[in-house]
């Protein structure tokens, strides 16, 4: 009996520890980009626009490092491409049960430089995250994950597109309006 209880407690502690230490890295994905920060962001924006038939549109482009610099501190470049799809947001926003997930809207893709001088793309692991919220959310998030995989395809044979600054709500705005998708 003692062994069973002890084993269960040990299992719970081990699981909690694993969850604590690994949850963060499981929730997010990081990919290296062959391009610089601006070009990576621009290519992601172009990929998003190419999926407009799936409801995707650009919400905004933000540069959080600017505000940090204004405060007197340097951080390596970071750009946040914000995008949303009404196709996926509508069912989530309709339901009281899932409306709180609007805190995840719009989807954000982070493009940043690290100390090795390389550019990286950070995305949410939408597929895994969706599984935490039940079947309905899981199925939607799974579709989002598939689209997200398309966002970050970097095709060097295509010319560099221009970076689309700001958003429908203006530069650095929260987006908004019907054209922003969400």
């Amino acid at each position, binding site marked *: 009996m003692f062994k069973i209880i002890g084993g269960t407690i040990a299992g719970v502690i081990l699981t909690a520890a694993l969850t604590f230490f690994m949850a963060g890295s499981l929730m997010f994905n990081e990919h290296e980009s062959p391009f610089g920060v601006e070009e990576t962001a621009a290519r992601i924006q172009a990929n998003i626009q190419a999926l407009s038939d799936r409801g995707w549109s650009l919400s905004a482009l933000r540069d959080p490092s600017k505000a940090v610099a204004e*405060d007197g501190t340097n951080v390596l470049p970071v750009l946040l491409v914000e995008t949303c799809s009404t196709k996926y947001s509508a069912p989530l926003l309709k339901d009281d049960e899932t409306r709180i997930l609007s805190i995840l809207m719009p989807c954000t893709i982070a493009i940043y430089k690290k100390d090795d001088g390389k550019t990286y793309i950070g995305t949410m692991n939408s597929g895994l995250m969706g599984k935490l919220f039940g079947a309905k959310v899981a199925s939607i998030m799974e579709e989002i994950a598939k689209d997200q995989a398309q966002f970050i395809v970097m095709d060097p044979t295509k010319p560099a597109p221009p970076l689309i600054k700001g958003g429908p709500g203006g530069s650095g705005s929260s987006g908004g309006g019907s054209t922003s998708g969400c």
Partner: protein
Amino acid sequence: MKTTRFHWGLLLLVGGLCLSTTGYAALQPTDTPATIGKESARKAPSTADHTKFKELQRSFKDGPAVTEACLQCHTEAAKQVHSTKHWTWEYLNPATTQKLGKKNVINNFCTSVSSNQTFCSACHVGYGWSDDSFDFSKESSVDCLVCHDTTGKYKKIPGLSGHPNYDRIELPPLSGKFREATDLQAIARNVGKTSRETCGTCHFYGGGGDAVKHGDLDSSLKTPKRYLDVHMDADGLNFSCGECHLSDAHQVAGSRYAPTASDKDGILMRGKDHGRNPATCQSCHGSTPHPAQHAKLNDHTDKVACQTCHIPEYARGAPSTKMTWDWSTAGRLDENGKRLQIMNSAGMVAYDSKKGDFTYDRYVIPEYVWFNGNIKYTLFGDKVDGSEMVKINEFMGGPDDPDSLIWPVKVFRGKQPYDVEHQTLAVFHTADKGDKDEAAFWSNYDWEKALEAGMATTGVPYSGKHDFVATEMSWPITHMVAPKGDALSCEQCHKENGRLKDVKGIYMPGANNTPLLDTLGFGIALLTLIGVLIHGGIRVYSARKEG
């Protein structure tokens, strides 16, 4: 069940957000803006009001006429300027005996001044240098205004042999934009001390544009914020260039041809300069500047330049700096045979028919090299191997050289022409007299004509056969000093593949693996453990036996 899973999900999400928020909080600034520099930020009062000088109460037909007026009071100024590198564009390096200076070096930007003086002399402190016949002894040819203008309205136009425009001109040509005639009278009456603006007129735009050449010098330093440079911070210490680059009789301290890589003489006291360079960090901060609680940092200063830690990245202002320049692709035109320009994602020119392909970067992680202050250049006529990368300049030094420190550098890479038969770098005539100049590459996109015209002015033979060779050129990084909180942290170097991974001849704890040392360390730890276990075992055994 559904609700339970939902709440578990929310819990994990909130936990993750809390963790990420904690991480973000760690990025928040800890330094407060310096306030002690407010006093020095005020404009220094002058004892002379040039608007009242009768010599300046007239109109001037050109720049030399202004200089003649200046020289009526400042009688020795032109003679002093004549002996500076800013005037001669020449420098004889005593260490290498190489004849350097803009007049003599080749770079991998626009490659050479030779044959291009009309264009390049927009950054010469003189008027009228268009070819080798220029009279370097003429006092009225000195341009006082380019350094002493305080209005910000004085601009020497490339293509006018060092002159500003005296008439209204379309600039750039065919752009539909016009620049009014330079008001020499107003500018001459408002001269003053040099400033970031006047020095930056050339030094921020080296290589043909803003932020192109140096990486640590660009227009963002005109009114920089604290994050960009703690010394030049416009709301703080507000240093002008001359604050560090002290001048004496127009000789400006600090040289990129013979920089002071290592300054071990401590703080420079007044009257005890002994010919020292006052522009080094040590001349103000000394050789062990870190306080007692960070004393370990002072153990680094004999091998690591201040700049290595305190300029963690360069090109931190708004403009990206140019990182590569491939001349071999220049000359490609659009379907109508017109000049082609292709922009990159950030809206900067990535391809130009006149210049080839470029790449840019910002917040660039420097490369690091041993440097003792000596730089060896590849000059006109020096042999190069077209199959290998050619170092346009090479920073000398090494781990066993007591005068060497580890320095951050910008390495600018490119492709440029070389003479296939003579195996020398080949320079070309880029732009001189506009579209009427048939030999200029920017007029006709004809490499052979441009190379023949360019090489003819160097005195080095040209075979008529060219190809392109990969080159690289290094630039010391010494401006854009970040706030102390942004200096490199220990672990940015002391880890595998850290910042200094390519620096030869150093052992850094945490970064390098020395098998003998590792074996010794682990061996001692193992023996200690065994000793403890044996000791503990004996104690347990003894206690049981006695008890």
